[in-house]
């Protein structure tokens, strides 16, 4: 077992939660990707008005937003796993993790701006 004093601030969250988050978000994203592919296939949008119409539906915006939230969360867990494997000094790892979180949050705000404007 993991010893209490072996814990470091940038370590794993010592539990099932992140693992599960990665799986649940993966399933949600897969569902959205299939939905999106079907919608695009059915309406085969070739001009801009059609694309705007697709994203004009409130349910489409909400679904896209949920997809993007899943994506950011999934990317956070995934990239953190990668950083934990390859970046050993705690200070560098923490700095990179903060960079990742901040960029993901900025992407999310950007996404809201795109979807609701």
């Amino acid at each position, binding site marked *: 077992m993991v010893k209490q004093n072996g814990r470091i601030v940038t370590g794993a969250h010592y539990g099932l939660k992140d693992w599960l988050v990665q*799986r649940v978000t*993966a*399933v949600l994203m*897969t569902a959205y*990707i299939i939905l999106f592919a079907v919608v695009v296939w059915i309406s085969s949008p070739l*001009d*801009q008005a059609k*694309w*705007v119409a697709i*994203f004009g539906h409130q349910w489409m915006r909400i679904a896209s937003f949920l997809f993007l939230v899943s*994506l*950011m969360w999934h*990317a956070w867990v*995934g*990239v953190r796993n*990668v950083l934990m494997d390859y970046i050993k000094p705690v200070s560098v790892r923490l700095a990179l993790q903060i960079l*990742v979180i901040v*960029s*993901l949050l900025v*992407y999310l705000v*950007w*996404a809201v701006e*795109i979807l609701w404007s």
Partner: protein
Amino acid sequence: MEAKLLKKQRPKHLNLFKISQPLPAIVSIMHRISGVLLFFPGIPLLLYGLQMLLESADSFEALHTLIQNPLVKGLILMFVWFGLHHLCAGIRYLALDLHYGIALAHARASSKWVLAVSVTLTLAVGITLW
């Protein structure tokens, strides 16, 4: 505590350029690499594309001309492949987590399928794009 365990001199064959990896290992490392590349520059590129698509008729036109560039087309196709590989390999992991296809023979076969399906779908997207 780890150090004690590792004291024993064991032979190491970890020269990654010398050992030949089994297919599932290759699919797995490609899943990791594609995941990182999808994070960056994948996500910002995706959002940038979405913004150009929806912002205005002008930005849509700009996107349209940009996509005509064969270099850009190739890049897009590469990211489509990263995405599809990550998706297919991800679905394979989800199945493995549920203990489907755990047997070695099945795991080898499914990793072949991951490669084949993602390349096929990428080609299909490429054909529609061109």
